[in-house]
């Protein structure tokens, strides 16, 4: 059952001027109930929260509950509601909903169901609950029309904001709104429409904010302003575990426009606020951004490491190599007898793959607006995890959940970075200390050096096949820096963020062994797009290619043989259908012309992945000249179930693919003397237009299955497809990301 229980909570309200409002009533009145955008409030705003409001003129307001980081949910979630409603999309206006929460005896009670951005989960969750909101509103409008016409409701149709009678008479939703608002929903609830009646779902829709974006009107968090507030920038400790050794702020205080210098110390010994890391820092608060930046350059500061002042990624590689010679920290899975089967194998293949730390480097650096008074807190926070942010605000202010308003504007990229809300903690601490509203900005250098990085890992794989090339033994050993390090997770569970015990090819190989080795390293880690799938899929799908070549098999046929006959089982808590993955792979191969003649110097590569309930296969055709990869074709075939917005799925898969290619080719975070070496884009060169495929051919397989999100689905299989294509073109196997250094040596 979804969090948002439709039968119990759906409520109908009459809004100002006769609007129909369908939403979720709060159970208790509370003075600081988060205000919704005014247009959604009607005259019941102290008691009402709402998803749908239909005004007498037919304008339809739909609330978007999840923060949009570029994954398109401000378009796709409202369209799910609008389709059930049979709304006229041209008359729909989408409004952002703040975090819906009220105080329930000291605990937060969530009002709007799931509100977050992460794990590509929004679409699947919306399918569970948001459809009922549109269906209920449509039911009410049809009932109102039935009463008006004295006809049975079942005989009335709806289309694009109209109720239509069998004789062709029609009434606009706006004309029916006031009457519909007087009706009660049936206790049994209202069933969503059959798929055959979908009108918006499955049809392409552009981003609802496109016009505001191209006109520069779309407000991101840092675009907003609070009249008498301060702009804050912070000089942070460069060590993961360090402290202030010396501060002289006299020159900074002398800078015109600088108002306050405030130290941020980590009160909790763990270096965490809740389970979110927070760096010690010195904040410069000023009247404008430029004064704050100038002030920061005038701080005379020295930091010292408490631990790990000599840490380096070069030494970390050695630590991994040494560890991998011994027994795993955690034996994750053991089917059959790997050792025996490997010894007995006709062919044995072994390989080692290296995955570096990488940064999130969202285009919009971290920022937060915070206004804190003794009895309330108001934040405009570009967070993927507003509930976690609420917990941090509560922890720092002692306010109850109902007194905290968290607005979530459009966000300039998340990719998992904003699941950690350290920047929100900073803004709250500064707003409290300064007694004024704060606009906190991270500079790019802050963002690059104080990220929560994708974990570093060294993967060692070994496989044995029988004489026919069937994979009989498989061992995957991974030494990595768990992203759960220092997050209050027991040592025995640190592996859980790094490997999935049931991830493919688990269950497909009889003698199968997974083992994880704990690397110790002082650098904060976090979730990075399709966490662990991206790194592990690179190793696994590259290795499958190596097995195929070593045993003179076609890499496509080897994968299809391994997947075997179509059947279903549970993987990572959801149903996996091997037939759907095989179909995606086969289709990608067909599209790229797999098995047909390849132009001289070109090579083709394949890879596939199952992630967050979705299926993806990549096929690439590349050549390498002058140390650079030339992309001739990039194909991505996905199966995300029913496609809610084809234009959105295309954008997400295109974007995920290009991001993964850019990351695999060029990106790496290194540490020397305990400090991150990369400061800005020249040292962390995210690929530009000329370096990436001119087009990504995205194909979404038609399906009626429950939809899942596509946000990160294009990421995991792109890098191994590229590595496999480079091998096919050059005979050189790239086992170490990023590929750029090795490509340069290939000349």
């Amino acid at each position, binding site marked *: 059952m979804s969090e948002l229980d439709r039968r119990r909570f759906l409520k109908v309200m009459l809004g100002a001027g006769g609007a129909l409002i369908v939403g979720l009533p709060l159970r208790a009145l509370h003075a600081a109930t988060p205000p919704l955008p005014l247009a959604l409030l009607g005259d019941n705003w102290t008691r009402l929260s709402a998803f749908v409001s239909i005004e007498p003129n037919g304008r339809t307001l739909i609330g978007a509950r999840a923060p949009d980081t570029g994954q398109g949910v401000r378009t796709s979630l409202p369209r799910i509601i609008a389709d059930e409603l049979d709304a006229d999309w041209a008359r729909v206006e989408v409004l952002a909903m703040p975090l819906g929460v009220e105080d329930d005896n000291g605990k937060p009670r969530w009002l709007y169901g799931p509100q977050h951005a992460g794990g590509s989960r929004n679409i699947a969750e919306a399918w569970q609950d948001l459809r009922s909101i549109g269906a209920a509103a449509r039911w009410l409008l049809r009932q109102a029309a039935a009463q008006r016409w004295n006809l049975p409701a079942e005989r009335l149709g709806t289309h694009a904001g109209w109720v239509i009678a069998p004789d062709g008479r029609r009434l606009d939703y706006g004309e029916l709104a006031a009457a519909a608002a007087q009706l009660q929903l049936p206790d049994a609830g209202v069933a969503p429409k059959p798929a055959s009646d979908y009108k918006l779902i499955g049809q392409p829709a552009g981003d609802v904010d496109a016009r505001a*974006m*191209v006109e520069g009107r779309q407000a991101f968090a840092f675009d907003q302003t609070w009249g008498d507030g301060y702009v804050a920038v912070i000089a942070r400790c460069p060590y993961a575990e360090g402290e202030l050794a010396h501060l002289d702020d006299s020159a900074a205080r002398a800078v015109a426009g600088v108002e306050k210098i405030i130290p941020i110390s980590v009160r909790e010994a763990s270096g965490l606020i809740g389970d979110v890391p927070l760096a010690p820092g010195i904040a410069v608060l000023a009247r404008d951004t*430029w004064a704050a930046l100038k002030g920061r350059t005038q701080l005379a500061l020295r930091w010292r490491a408490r631990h790990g002042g000599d840490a380096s990624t070069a030494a970390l590689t050695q630590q991994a190599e040494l560890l991998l010679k011994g027994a795993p920290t955690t034996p994750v899975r053991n089917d059959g007898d790997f050792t025996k089967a490997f010894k007995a194998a006709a062919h044995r293949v072994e390989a080692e793959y290296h995955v570096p730390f990488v940064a999130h480097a969202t*285009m919009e650096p971290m920022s937060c607006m915070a206004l804190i008074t003794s009895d309330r807190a108001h934040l405009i926070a570009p967070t993927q995890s507003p509930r976690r942010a609420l917990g941090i605000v509560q922890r720092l202010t002692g306010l109850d959940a109902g007194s905290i308003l968290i607005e979530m504007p459009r966000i300039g*990229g998340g990719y998992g970075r904003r699941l950690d809300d350290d920047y929100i903690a900073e803004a709250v601490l500064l707003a409290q200390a300064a007694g004024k509203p704060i606009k906190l900005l991270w500079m*790019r250098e802050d963002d690059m050096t104080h990220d929560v990085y994708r974990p570093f890992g060294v993967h060692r794989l070994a496989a044995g096949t029988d004489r026919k090339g069937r994979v009989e033994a498989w061992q995957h050993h991974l030494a990595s820096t768990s992203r759960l390090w220092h997050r209050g997770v027991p040592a025995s569970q640190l592996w859980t963020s790094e490997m999935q015990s049931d991830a493919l090819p688990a269950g497909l190989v009889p003698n199968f062994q997974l083992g994880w080795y704990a690397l110790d390293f002082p650098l904060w880690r976090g979730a990075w797009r399709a966490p662990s799938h991206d790194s592990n899929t690179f190793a696994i799908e590259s290795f499958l290619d190596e097995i195929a070549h070593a045993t003179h098999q076609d890499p496509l046929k080897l994968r299809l043989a391994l997947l075997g006959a179509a059947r279903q089982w549970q993987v990572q808590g959801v149903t996996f259908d091997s037939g759907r993955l095989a179909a995606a792979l086969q289709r990608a191969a067909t599209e790229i012309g797999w098995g047909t003649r390849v132009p001289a110097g070109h090579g083709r590569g394949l890879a596939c992945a199952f992630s967050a309930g979705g299926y993806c296969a990549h096929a690439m055709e590349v050549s390498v000249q002058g140390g650079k990869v030339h992309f001739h074709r990039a194909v991505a075939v996905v199966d995300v179930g029913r496609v809610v917005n084809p234009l959105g799925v295309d954008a997400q898969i295109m974007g995920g693919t290009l991001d993964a290619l850019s990351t695999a080719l060029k990106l790496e975070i290194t540490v020397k003397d305990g400090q991150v070496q990369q400061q800005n*884009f020249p040292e962390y060169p995210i690929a530009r237009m000329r370096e990436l495929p001119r087009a990504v051919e995205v194909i979404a397989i038609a399906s009626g299955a429950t939809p899942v999100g596509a946000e990160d689905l294009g990421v995991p299989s792109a890098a191994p497809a590229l590595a496999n294509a480079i091998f096919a073109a050059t005979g050189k196997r790239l086992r170490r990301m990023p590929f750029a250094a090795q490509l340069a040596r290939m000349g």
Partner: protein
Amino acid sequence: MAPLPPQVPPAHITPQPRREGIHLQVNGKPYLHAGDPDMPLLWWLRDYLQLTGTKYACGIGDCGACSVLVDGEPVHACLTPMQTLAGRKVTTVEGLALADGSPGALQQAWINEDAILCGYCQAGQLIAAHALLQRHPRPSEADLDTLPNLCRCGSYPRIRKAILRAARARAGKPENPA
């Protein structure tokens, strides 16, 4: 409520001397900057004019998110001090619309191609594309490869399509030859 007292115009008006500072135009309107002449244009646009379409992303003139036009040429606003702008004409993303307020050809092409993912870099991309079309009204794929601006989301293929669409629209060709 008491009525406001009647307003009496002054008998003499002494013209104020021209105020000291940097006089410039932004999107066709005159402005004066009387603050720190070292202040980069980016922060002046954002903090004082509330023209927040122009974004900060690197601060070192590398990524292009802060691109604006100065006298028609693209520059990085993050590295352009106000003191270099006396008498210059600045155009930001907010100034790309047509005179009647409707989107310009590039902006409309962006909307039609749904070129936006997170959207944060797109103001700079539009300015860079605008400058490219000035140099190459009918850009080739190789011309498009020269676009320098960074997009973290991977919207590049749609940006390419949007620019080609805008070029066709400006040349008066049908939007979709198919």
